[in-house]
């Protein structure tokens, strides 16, 4: 008989396209069967809750190192696990910034104390200054799975070019936020008639689009691999699609907020809806532009 059966779970597996109520048989910690009316030594009734492969969160900002009073790698991992996330990639915008291979080692050491997979994203520039290249090769060898510039873009196109070219040698994935620092200066919302009426400084979608276009061109020039980190606008998505049609190794990520909410959620100055990147207009969120 099977060790453990989870009964009446909503089994979701995007890989195989499965989405049904079923029982899951587990033997020695491995799923051996997904079927109906299974029996086991131990039975858990899921009452229709979702059972799915562990989720991956590739943009986790933790408090360790720097503000361990707020959060540690261990507590972040526990929080992730309780939300069904079994793999996290921690971002380098900690204190100190993870811009050196010894810090990659440090995070990996902490990861051994957790029950989930913890990977590290190294900093793309020293202290995330947007100017000084970090030891991308040595950090890759030490185990960094990607390189991120935290919450900031690399505004200098020449430096971005060199970062993409240099990282291509190590086939390293690099990730930057897509906005133009001048166009987005002081912005806390999307630039629209609505936010203008509220008297908020808005970021035009063009700020995102210009940066993606620039970085797509530089990725094509250098043969690098770029992740556009947290896209928010329809124009941005269109720009990424155009680049991918040219076989440029460009991908993008989006936060759940930008799929589910729009600028109207700011409503009557609800500060927690003033996000970076800003929530876009009702008809311009990337989710709604999907054809």
């Amino acid at each position, binding site marked *: 008989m099977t060790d453990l059966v989870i009964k009446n779970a909503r089994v979701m597996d995007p890989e195989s396209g499965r989405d049904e109520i079923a029982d899951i048989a587990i033997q020695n910690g491995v799923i051996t069967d997904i079927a109906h009316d299974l029996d086991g030594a131990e039975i858990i009734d899921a009452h229709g809750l979702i059972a799915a492969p562990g989720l991956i969160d590739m943009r986790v900002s933790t408090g360790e190192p720097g503000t361990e009073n707020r959060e540690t790698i261990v507590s972040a991992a526990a929080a992730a696990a309780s939300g069904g996330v079994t793999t996290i990639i921690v971002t380098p915008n900690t204190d100190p910034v993870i811009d050196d291979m010894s810090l990659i080692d440090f995070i990996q050491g902490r990861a051994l104390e957790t029950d989930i997979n913890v990977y590290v994203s190294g900093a793309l520039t020293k202290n995330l200054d947007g100017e000084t*290249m970090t*030891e991308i*090769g040595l950090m890759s060898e030490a185990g960094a799975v990607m390189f991120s510039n935290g919450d900031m873009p690399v505004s200098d196109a020449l*430096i971005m070019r060199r970062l993409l070219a*240099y990282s*291509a040698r190590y086939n390293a994935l690099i990730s930057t936020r897509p906005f133009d620092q001048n166009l987005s200066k002081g912005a806390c919302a999307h630039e629209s008639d609505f936010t203008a009426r509220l008297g908020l400084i808005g970021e035009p979608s063009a700020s995102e689009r210009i940066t993606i276009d620039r970085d797509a061109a530089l990725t094509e*020039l250098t043969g690098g691999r770029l992740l556009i980190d947290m896209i928010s606008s329809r124009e941005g998505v269109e720009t990424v699609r155009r680049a991918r049609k040219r076989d440029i190794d460009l991908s993008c990520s989006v936060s759940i907020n930008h799929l589910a909410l729009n600028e109207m959620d700011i409503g009557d100055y609800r500060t927690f809806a003033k996000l970076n990147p800003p929530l876009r207009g009702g008809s311009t969120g990337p989710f709604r532009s999907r054809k």
Partner: protein
Amino acid sequence: MASSYGYPFKQQHCLSISQFSRPDIETLLSLGEHYLDLDVQKSPDRTILAGKTLVNLFFENSTRTQKSFEIAGRRLGADVINMSVAGSSVKKGETLLDTAATLNAMNPDILVVRHNASGAPALLAQKLSGSVVNAGDGMHEHPTQALLDALTLRRVFGEDLGGLRIAICGDITHSRVARSNVQLLNMLGCEVRLVGPPTLIPSDADRWGVDVFHDMETGLEGCDVVMMLRLQLERMSGAFVPSKREYFHFYGLDRAKLTYAKDGAKVMHPGPMNRGVEISSDVADDPHLSLITQQVESGVAIRMGILHALSDARDDIA
């Protein structure tokens, strides 16, 4: 007049490798070989350039190149003037063309120029009546270095360098030595490879008739010669490469990386070296591996050969 294969050497200047034909190169290399013999080189009969004036005009610092031109000129009997830019009117704001006009009025026979701007010696060659030798211009060419490297290789591998696989490693983008060597070694039938990080190799360098590699392990495979280039300090602080430490780890030549090359491969470096950055001291100083000292010896000989050939060619039209 000096000649090879019946082709007389008629070049008035030595500005770039691309100006020379294969017979010209043979002429220069065989003259260089002739002057490698110290009895010839230091012969008291200093008549070849007797009565001629050689001016060394160096707008950039140099030890090896300037001194070897000075020694080469003196050993051939020329009057050698060293113009240091630091103490000249250039520091007072004189333009290159004004300096050229001033020098021209003094009728030097040979002007040896090093300048940080690509093309400066070519410009001077148009404005001066004497012969101009390019001793390194910006990121363009350093033809006498390439010739001395070829002469050094001939001393080790014999006259025919055809088929030798040679890796030029490091900062190709900013290197005039690399550009001259790519052309010359290609002309001599070598298989040339460029190895370095993508930030230090020009985007389309694979169209120079070379194979481009970004890692030492595949780049050095089967190489007979590994030619290291100097990495300038200002390029290793996060602009082109992250740090000295990372550069040495991936591109610095040590004994471990040298094992990727052919057994018994030789190591060259145009100098000055950054020990522990592009090359480890034990490789640089190993007389069984390193040709670095021979390169300097060849430098004096090949420069005597170049001065000799240019002077003969000019006398011939006079």
